[in-house]
């Protein structure tokens, strides 16, 4: 008959393995591996940290928010280490996660981009803070509910209105300044 302690250990290991696999998959899905971190290393580190925490306080409650913090700190630490390590040139701008799937950018396009980026920065700075935050969160890829949660907007619908008006204002301003037409 197996030792009960071994059974518990085996069950916990199975849980951590499943969770670690999910962490690794999400790191790849969100392109965080392109920032100099190894998803397998991060996953292993997350599991080690969770094990240690569990060993430290066996009777303590293990909340989801604590697990989330462990993952967040592990990923942030890995990103910082990657930054420090990056003595060699960083990945090309075109390889940034934001441009995943886009066609390669030529020198002409790059020069135009720099100009447009400067124009975008200028126009965003002109937008009042209250409307700027939902727009920038939207441009970073957050969904409306996420924007509402992050920016403290009462509802997704209110966030949608703020984003939609803000984007229209931004596009008009960019057009007025001669930076051309923009899509979302």
């Amino acid at each position: 008959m197996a030792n009960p302690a071994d059974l518990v250990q085996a069950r916990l290991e199975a849980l951590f393995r499943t969770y670690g696999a999910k962490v690794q998959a999400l790191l790849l899905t969100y392109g965080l591996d392109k920032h100099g971190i190894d998803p397998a290393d991060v996953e292993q580190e997350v599991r080690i940290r969770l094990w240690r925490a569990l060993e430290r306080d066996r009777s303590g409650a293990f909340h989801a928010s604590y697990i989330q913090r462990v993952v967040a700190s592990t990923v942030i630490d890995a990103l910082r280490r990657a930054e420090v390590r990056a003595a060699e040139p960083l990945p090309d701008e075109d390889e940034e996660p934001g441009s995943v799937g886009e066609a390669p950018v030529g020198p002409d396009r790059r020069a135009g981009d720099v100009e447009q980026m400067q124009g975008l920065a200028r126009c965003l700075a002109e937008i009042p803070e209250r409307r700027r935050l939902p727009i920038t969160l939207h441009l970073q890829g957050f969904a409306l509910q996420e924007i509402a949660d992050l920016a403290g907007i009462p509802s997704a619908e209110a966030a949608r209105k703020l984003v939609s008006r803000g984007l229209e204002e931004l596009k008009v301003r960019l057009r007025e300044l001669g930076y051309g037409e923009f899509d979302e």
Partner: protein
Amino acid sequence: MNWDTVNSMNKTSLSALYRRLTSANAPALDAEDIAAAADGTLADDRRDAVAGAIAASPVHARVVRMLRELRTDSEALAFGIARTERDAAHRRHERSDRRIATGRRYGQVTRWATAMAACLVAVVGFWTQRHVQTESPRAHAVAKADRIFTSRDTISHLTMDGPRSKPSVEGDRLFRDDFSGGG
């Protein structure tokens, strides 16, 4: 809508352009803030600063979005750990209960044995005391008998010396009187 790849023939994607603009940004956000942002539990006084920093950094935005998606799995893991630990604790408790019950049984036996031993000691003690008590009066009696015998001797001695001689004298006197009266 695919935010990353919107890029038509004449129109530039604002999202892609904004991410390129902010790609070099790496604001100093700590894990607590990022986890709180992902969980929607940012404190009001930190909200604008943290949300602004996340909005200005594609990599932090990705971490937050990843954590939001991971939330359900983190809850499942927390639940799984709690259940496993609870089951283990329950088993430990059962084992400890069994041990206590066994201990209790042994304790009862020990108590019985102690009680019996105490009774035995009491009985032996009582018997010994009784035995000593019944033996000492006999010894006393022997001594007394001796004393009585001695006193008898004394009495006998006294009788021989005093009172017994008197009646004989009186007897003799009565006998003498009878004779003198009748004569």
